[in-house]
């Protein structure tokens, strides 16, 4: 699981920071381990993701997964993002995620999906 792509994203996370103001924002904690990811999204006129930033803390799997995901978000619609799952993250990280770590790997994706379900803040 701890292949070079995952470790590279963990040590050098992409697109971290905040977007202020953001069109959508959501903070998703994992109460099991205390990991947390907060995403900030800007949307274009069609409601597709135009820009993304995120902040978080926690294990390598959750942080690397969000980092890799953040590179795939621009141009995606809510429907497209709702259809994404752990397999997309595994493809981006070029590794397979252990069943015990699925919640870690999808924490960022869940944060993005929940952000898009909200109204403009």
């Amino acid at each position, binding site marked *: *699981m*701890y292949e070079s792509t995952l*470790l590279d994203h963990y*040590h050098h996370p992409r697109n971290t920071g905040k977007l202020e103001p953001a069109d959508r924002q959501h903070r998703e904690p994992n109460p*099991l*381990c*205390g*990991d947390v990811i907060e995403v900030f999204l800007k949307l274009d006129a069609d409601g597709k993701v135009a820009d993304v930033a995120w902040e978080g*803390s*926690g*294990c*390598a*799997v959750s942080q690397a997964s969000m980092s890799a995901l953040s590179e795939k978000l621009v141009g995606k619609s809510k429907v497209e993002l709702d259809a994404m799952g752990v397999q997309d993250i595994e493809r981006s990280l070029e590794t397979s995620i*252990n069943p*015990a*770590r699925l919640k*870690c790997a999808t924490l960022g994706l869940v944060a993005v999906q929940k952000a898009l379900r909200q109204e403009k803040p």
Partner: protein
Amino acid sequence: MLDIFAIRKDFPILARQVNGKPLVYLDNGATSQKPLSVLQAMDDFQRNHNANVHRGIYTLSEEATALYEGAREKIRQFINARSVEEIIFTRNATEAINLVALSWARQKLVAGDEVLTTEMEHHSNIVPWQMLAKERGIMLKFVPAKPDLGTLDLGLFETLLTPKTKLVCVGHMSNLLGTVNPVKTFVEKSHAVGAKVLIDGCQAVPHLPVDVQQLGADFYAFSGHKMLGPTGIGVLWARKEILDATEPVLGGGDMIKEVTKVGATWNDLPWKFEAGTPNVVGAIGLGAAVDYLTKVGMENIWQHEQDMATYVLPKLTAIPGVQLFGMQKPSLDRGAIFSIWIDGMHPHDIASIFDEQGIAIRAGHMCSQPMLEVLGKPAAARASFYLYNTQAEADVFLNAIEDAKKVFGV
């Protein structure tokens, strides 16, 4: 000295492989593995003696009752309680503590009374008291821990203890730090102000000799599954005079003497607190576990864990970057529980890398979030040893830390 290799043969699961490597099971603080004798005792009951207890006027029911009550007597002897009337079967230690909160404490404590617990407690010895405090206007206070020493602050404990204190709750051994707390001192000081004492013995009863009469507390809770028994069975020991003066909380079959449309009278102890068909097979399994532990000898098991700690601690604390929580050196007040933090590696990542090598450890908050807050860390990776763990397994554990550090470049 324990004959560990003979002991290991008694535990079928220890022979299995995980991810292509021999299983190294170091999550005994969460639950222990089960010897064949426990599995066979439960199997034999269900194959050959199964019937409900305390009811039937037929051979099988008499056998089932004798086995169930026989298990209770084994547990009485194991913790040296005065009488089986003081041994109440519960689901686990959590339910035992909740039973005290929902019965004795709910009936005797009033608004303005104080309950003392400690920062070192498992959530199961905190949350029931928070719930009761909220419901009844009781003040819940925490005895602080000294994070650098891994001990409780006895000086502050004494200042927190006042005539308003009605109950003091303390863990016998910390599930996060492995610290053995001076529970006898807690009992003496608490009784001096008229407070009752509840000891969470979940991590102590499996690992060291426990004599409830010698400790002198009022309530003592533990779980069967951490001491070679099955899940779903635990014990509340409480003084008979307290149980006699406490109303039951669960009503139903087996806990009554007589029921009319007007009301009911309660059964004798301990059945007054055991409504409904109990976990008969679980109790029998726990009885067999107690037989096994007694045969090996609790003094021997504790000595083995001291030996493990003596072996592991200097090596573990010498690994650069490893922060060990609690007592850094071997001590009679410390068991073989090792919780660590490594900067740059989340405990879940450590546990995943270990799992790839067949090593089972716990990672997360260990149901000890208040203590982790004191330590200033969100989580920990914990290895907890038991009677069947070997020095070779300790080496596998120590080497795996070095390997994990290489993966993460820390």
